[in-house]
């Protein structure tokens, strides 16, 4: 195999337990996003647009949907004779073999895969962030500073800094220390979970980490602190632009809403396309009495009702008289006649029955009772049933007689 300068390793094994019913049957990176994408399309498209043509995707939790989705890598132009995209599940070795114990262990277990390409650099990515980033710039900086590790960071509001892994840096961008979710943050530079390592260095630290039975085998928790303690050269790489962790129901909902607010994340840029596997459905149809405003609507949809401030994914249906506001209607979901869906996530192939109500406007309820309502994949909400804000339906909801 010819040498590759950089190999990307995409951590896609996370269960995404804080997405609850949305990830019961699929891994988080396979969760639909933004009309026609899945979360993993963002890092994969970033790789394609950054000319990185060798990507290992590390999977472990519920991999079938993700494997089928990635396939040969054709949608991202990653079907290559050499390199391309490879799905890397944990496997049995002659001496044992285990599940991926942590993010660092996942890479450790695939040292053999990486060495096939004899790379100078390894780019570590995670499969649960929405952002557009040119990794070439980061790699160029890594080379220029002759760093051992470069970590992408983004400024977050100081008030929220304690939710993130925070990097404390010197003026030249070099990293002094790293604190995971600090109570009293000293800086507001959050790690984006995007790392460039010089491979020889990382390899040595992975071997040492694996030999330490006390380690949790985690990049943020073990590898980075070990490198800092040993005085290795770690630099931050400032990223300016949109970046969002979509690991929770609220953040997933918000990130979809952010697509509507102009300028936050432009998915229409022909110079930086976000690629996705095409489903081959016809253009959508908007009916004679429909009303659609400030929304994204995707191929294969049929809209007869009203849609406002919402994202309707591939093949969604909004029937006559239905009202959808500030909501996400995922692929194949159906909103029945006269149903009202507000501030909600309706998952893939779910059905909201005639006259049912899902979610509510924040102004209509006590703030402490408010939250995004969720209807799980393929769940049927019966006619006239009511799902309150914050409620989550993981199983069918029986129909109720419509209120007179």
């Amino acid at each position: 195999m010819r040498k590759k300068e950089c190999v990307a390793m995409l951590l896609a094994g996370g269960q995404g337990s804080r997405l609850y019913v949305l990830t019961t049957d699929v891994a988080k990176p396979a969760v639909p996003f933004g009309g026609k994408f899945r979360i993993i399309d963002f890092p994969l498209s970033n790789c394609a647009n950054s000319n990185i043509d060798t990507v290992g995707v590390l999977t472990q939790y519920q991999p079938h949907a993700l494997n089928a989705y990635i396939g040969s890598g054709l949608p991202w132009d990653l079907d290559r004779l050499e390199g391309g995209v490879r799905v890397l599940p944990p496997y049995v070795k002659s001496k044992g073999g285990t599940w991926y114990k942590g993010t660092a262990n996942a890479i450790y277990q695939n040292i053999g895969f990486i060495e096939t390409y004899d790379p100078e650099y390894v780019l570590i990515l995670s499969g649960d962030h929405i952002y557009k980033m040119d990794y070439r710039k980061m790699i160029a900086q890594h080379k220029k500073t002759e760093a051992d590790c470069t970590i992408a960071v983004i400024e977050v509001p100081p008030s929220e800094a304690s939710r993130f892994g925070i990097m404390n840096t010197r003026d030249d961008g070099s990293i002094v220390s790293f604190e995971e979710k600090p109570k009293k943050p000293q800086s507001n530079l959050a790690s984006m979970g995007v790392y460039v390592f010089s491979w020889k260095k990382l390899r040595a630290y992975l071997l040492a980490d694996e030999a330490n039975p006390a380690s949790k085998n985690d990049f943020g928790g073990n590898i980075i602190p070990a490198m800092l303690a040993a005085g290795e050269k770690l630099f931050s790489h400032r990223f300016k632009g949109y970046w969002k962790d979509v690991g929770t129901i609220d953040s997933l909902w918000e990130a979809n809403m952010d697509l509507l607010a102009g300028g936050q994340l432009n998915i229409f840029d022909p110079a930086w396309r976000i690629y996705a596997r095409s489903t081959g459905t016809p253009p959508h149809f908007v009916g004679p009495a429909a009303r659609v405003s400030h929304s994204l609507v995707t191929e294969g949809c049929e809209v007869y009702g009203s849609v406002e401030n919402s994202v309707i994914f591939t093949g969604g249906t909004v029937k006559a008289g239905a009202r959808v506001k500030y909501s996400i209607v995922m692929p194949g979901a159906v909103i029945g006649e006269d149903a009202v869906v507000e501030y909600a996530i309706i998952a893939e192939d779910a059905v909201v029955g005639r006259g049912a109500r899902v979610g509510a406007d924040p102004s209509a309820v006590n703030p402490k009772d408010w939250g995004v309502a969720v209807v799980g994949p393929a769940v049927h909400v019966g006619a006239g049933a009511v799902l309150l804000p914050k409620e989550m339906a993981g199983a069918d909801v029986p129909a109720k007689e419509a209120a007179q």
Partner: protein
Amino acid sequence: MNDMHGLIFAYAKGGENLKELTERRAVPSLPFGGRYRVIDFMLSNMVNAGVTDVGVVMRENYQSLLDHLESGKNWDLSRKRGGLRLLPPFSYAGSGPYEGVFLGNMAALYNISSYLSHIRQDYVVVAEGGLVANLPLEDALRRHVDTGADITVLCTPQRLGQQEFSSFLTLGGTGRISDLARGRDMDGALEMLGVYILSKPLLLSLVSHCAAHNLYDFERDVLQNMLGSLGLYGYVFEGYAARMTTVAAYFKHNMDMLRADARASLFLKDRPIKTKVRDEASAYYGPDARVQNCIVADGCYIEGDVENSILSRGVRIEPGVRVHNSVLLQDTRVSSGAILGYAITDKEVVIGPGRMLMGHATYPIAVSKGSVV
């Protein structure tokens, strides 16, 4: 996987009546329904019937077609053995029975004789690339084998356009064709769809027979002349079918996509129509957009009023625009304050601010590719 090979004639020109739209492309390469090219339907029909090898016969103006078909990967036809094979007219210039002159489809087939002789399948479906329909070709092949027909001719009870450009047939009690007429309708007749199934050996022998006798027209020289000697059977297709014969017909058939029954007949879950993927994001509707009774493709950005129209991929409608009863092909841009009615704008047309274009249902205005109005 089945035992049928596909051949598509992709060179129909459309003539004077389609001039604005076909100056630089053949009819099979015409955009259709907001997302497709006409040839997508026949290609998908074949692939959906399990056909793995398809030859596309071209003649002139085929650059647009090459660009669209690429390697065939969008139809899963980029294969090591078989798959999509583009057949440009490399051999017309040479001498031979037709003396290098293009005369008709049998002459076109003679020119690809060596390709035909290497066909791996026992049966061949030969189709005009200008038909929009979702045909059950697997079922048609089954019927072809069951009836023991020499040639099965697909036909419809509908009328697809002016009769002078159409061909008709009548069926006897057993489904055998009793009469064939060209350019003139008959009592109780069905209209031919330009799709035929026959065996590979019969196709080869008909091609060589025609070449030897200076015959070149499949309909006249094979179907009509051999009606008595060959077993010709009809296969009646009842679903939606359309042919682009004039600008007005092109307009009307695009508008047909606003009908739920037409969409239901063309777009089936188990027989999807595939096309070249453009990787556009979902369509965006602005806060003041007002869109009713429209087909809208991905990548559109709509901030004005649109009614009874077809918006293809990447169309941009600026604020204050009013578009009604129009077909806007890909990447059309309508600038603020412009008004369009009964118009067809080809690829990458720009309608300037405040411009007004108004046609009529029977005479839609067509604006050719890349024009700036």
